[in-house]
């Protein structure tokens, strides 16, 4: 506060000063918020650990071919010499885990599980990121519109969000992913599947972001600096982009980060149910589904399972840290 003592009923604060105060207060917040957040984040060991894992994962995904060259075999390459031709399970104990095959080999074909897990990261992250991006864009746009303009638009969008949240998502997604043939919309193969999954996942999870953004916008709209801007004759677009969005960055960032792990799980689920990216392209969910048929070779399930677990956990940890850092009240 600017006054030395918060004196109730004090009419002594002149108006212009208030605006000034409002303005520079925002400035201060804007600056210090970021700094404080970063400080807190750095102090939060767990979150940082999460961040590190995420970075590693991304590197792995991007340089998958390189890594596989160094430590493994092409993900589609058969190694049937490693497989007992009658039972189709790996000859060596522990699923043929060795220096040559770090995670052992898949039953039937003897494909290198390590490489497949590594390549699985690509699909998983790619879809999760793109889907999150999509839902964030949709969510933010509609959220801001609803929150800022209110009235009929708001009711319309809010209802829409309710409907979406009411959908039996998974059943729906499977159904949708199930009815689309192998060639459609001028796409085919993996490209089609990835695009399809990104669309489905992103399209169904935008309301989570949308709700937050709408709420935030509603409260921001009432803040004095918006009124100030209005009183200075600023037009809606200006206010939205210059006044609102900067203040929405934090919540959007938080919830986008927290949406990624959900989407990773979503993709894995769809692949597990066989409507994800088609084999032989390696996906973690798909590998788990295969592993279920070969449950006598537990290691087959173990690695893709762990991969999903670690990835999701990392994102959750980081997301939580981010939230705590950006708005401590959330703790």
């Amino acid at each position, binding site marked *: 506060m600017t006054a030395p003592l918060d004196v109730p009923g004090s009419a002594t604060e002149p108006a212009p000063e208030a605006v000034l105060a409002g303005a520079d207060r925002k400035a201060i917040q804007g600056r210090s918020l970021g700094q404080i957040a970063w400080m807190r984040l750095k102090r939060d060991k767990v979150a940082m650990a999460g961040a590190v894992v995420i970075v590693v994962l991304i590197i792995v995904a991007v340089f998958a071919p390189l890594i596989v060259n160094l430590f493994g075999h092409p993900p589609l*390459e058969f190694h049937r010499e490693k497989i007992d031709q009658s*039972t189709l399970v790996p000859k060596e104990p522990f699923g043929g885990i060795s220096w040559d095959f770090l995670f052992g080999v898949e*039953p*039937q*074909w003897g494909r290198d599980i390590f490489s497949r897990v590594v390549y699985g990261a690509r699909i998983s992250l790619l879809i999760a990121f793109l889907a999150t991006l999509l839902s964030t864009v949709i969510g933010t746009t509609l959220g801001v519109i609803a929150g800022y303009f209110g009235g009929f638009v708001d009711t319309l969008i809010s209802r829409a969000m309710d409907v979406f949240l009411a959908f039996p998502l998974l059943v729906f997604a499977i159904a949708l992913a199930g009815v689309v043939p192998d060639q459609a919309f001028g796409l085919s193969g993996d490209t089609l599947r990835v695009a399809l999954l990104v669309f489905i996942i992103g399209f169904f999870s935008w309301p989570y972001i949308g709700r937050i953004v709408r709420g935030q916008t509603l409260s921001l709209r009432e803040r004095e600096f918006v009124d100030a801007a209005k009183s200075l004759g600023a037009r809606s677009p200006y206010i939205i982009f210059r006044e609102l969005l900067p203040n929405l960055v934090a919540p959007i960032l938080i919830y986008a980060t927290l949406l990624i792990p959900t989407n990773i799980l979503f993709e894995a689920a769809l692949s597990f149910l066989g409507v994800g990216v088609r084999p*032989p392209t390696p996906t973690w969910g798909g590998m788990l589904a295969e592993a279920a*048929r070969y449950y006598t070779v537990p290691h087959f399930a173990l690695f893709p399972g762990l991969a999903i677990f670690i990835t999701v956990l990392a994102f959750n940890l980081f997301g939580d840290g981010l939230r705590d850092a950006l708005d401590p009240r959330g703790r």
Partner: protein
Amino acid sequence: MKKRRVAAAAVTAALAMGLAACGGTSTTGGESGQSAAPAAKAEFNAALTKVFNPSTKKGGTIKFANSGDWDSLDPADTYYGYSWNFIRLYGRALTMFKSAPGAEGATVVPDLATDLGKPSEDFKTWTYTLRDGLKFEDGTPITSKDVAYAVARSTDKETFPNGPTYLKDMLNWPKGYEGPYKSKDVDFSSAIETPDDKTIIFHLTQPYSGFDYLAQMSPTMPVPKAKDTGAKYREHVISSGPYMFEKNEIGKGFTLVRNPHWDPATDPNRPALPDRIEVQTNVNADDLDNRLMSGDIHIDVAGTGVQPAAMSKILPDPNLKAQTDNPTLQRLWYTSISPTVKPLDNIDCRKAVLYAADKTGYQSAYGGEFSGGQIATNLMPPSIPGAQPFDLYPSGPDGTGDLAKAKEHLAACGQPNGFETNIAYRAERPKEKATAEALQQSLARVGIKLTLKPYPQADYFSLYAGKPPYVVENKLGLAVNGWGSDYPDGYGFLQQITDSRVIRETGGSSNISVRIPEVDKMFDQSLQEADAKKREPIWNAIDKRVMEEAVILPGVWAKSLLFRPKGLTNVFISDSQQMYDYVALGVQ
């Protein structure tokens, strides 16, 4: 899977002598059982060629389980091998496959009929006479009208989408006849006549000497018009066999109990040992296997063998393995090589493919040597009467291909560094995809690059791989394919996939690559040959000729690993069912 459309003229001869071979003789599984070793020593393939644990002891409950579900229990509406095997427990057709182990089980014997069909001179009219004392489960007598009605209704594909269409296609139905529901009271005597309650006469559009084979199919099982409820008849099929439905919860399972009005005197083929038959459907496949091994259930009714997980438990364990049978099915998984696609128009390039292919890979694609199949070196599966396996393109000691030879032929073909082409397969079939991948890898070793081309299985033959112009345009040099005939017969097996005359420019044929005039001739000449034994060499000759042309890459003859729980009696596999014969089974 099972295949439609048998070329009429063709099978004629085949069956004519099939008749000669095994005329009236009929012995029950039980009897042939006594001839087998009495002591039931469990060993691998113990029930493959002889009766395991023979017995005539009646009583007890036999438990079946199905990891999926029937397409339908309605005789007019079912086309699964196991269903045709099982349905004989609650339905009787005019004829049936003999309930006996091995080759003997591939012969047709009369069932409802007093004898096999009496053909007219031109083989276009077939007459059967029903036995006396036949009754439905409700005690009403079975007449020829009921059989006629059953066949008539089976032509309504909208109500019965799944059933076989032989009779719909071959009988002389009135124009636009759509079955007794839509074409109410239309007289179809042009197709089927029933002069009296005992006699039924079939009129065919073309000669067909193999009609007895069609007469053993479920659509000729009698259906009482009064009790017919169309699409809902499956909920309670009126039994004409030894067992009838007690309760039936579609999607969960059903129970069969003895049919009081079934008279053993009228039925020499069915020992009908158990008192009760319980069937569970939609059981989790892995769980099913475990329960099989624990003896909790007796038979996996689908008869397609155990799951990979169970297999990896069974095979290493001698005691468990001793409880399995591993029949080779009359089905060939193969890959067509199209001589219409460059450079495969050159025989050496085709041979290169045959040599370079890794057969063991093919085998793993379908599930290994036990559940996948036996590596095929030629077309005809060994269990087809008269088949003599041979190998023109030995693929190395370890069966992974003879690369040296492959390279030679590539050079001879003028493509020393290999070439590129496409391979088509059915998108919905993981095993075919695996095959395509396996070939892609093994052929790459000699520089032959394959591009995978998945197609929807519904239109695989009608629009894509089976349509010659499309094949040429899209350079489908290879096409993953498979074939199994509805009944054990050389002609039935070979003709649809090697007679060039079945190829239609408009598509729809399973024969994608075989266009050899000599082969066509051989088929024709086989039609002149009345004696079965004399015809068998012809099948082998055709087989050889096709292999010489190197237009088909044989993959595996399908096999299945069947688990045979303790406590079952009269267990055997017949060449007609290629799985346990469900009619013979009993429990201790």
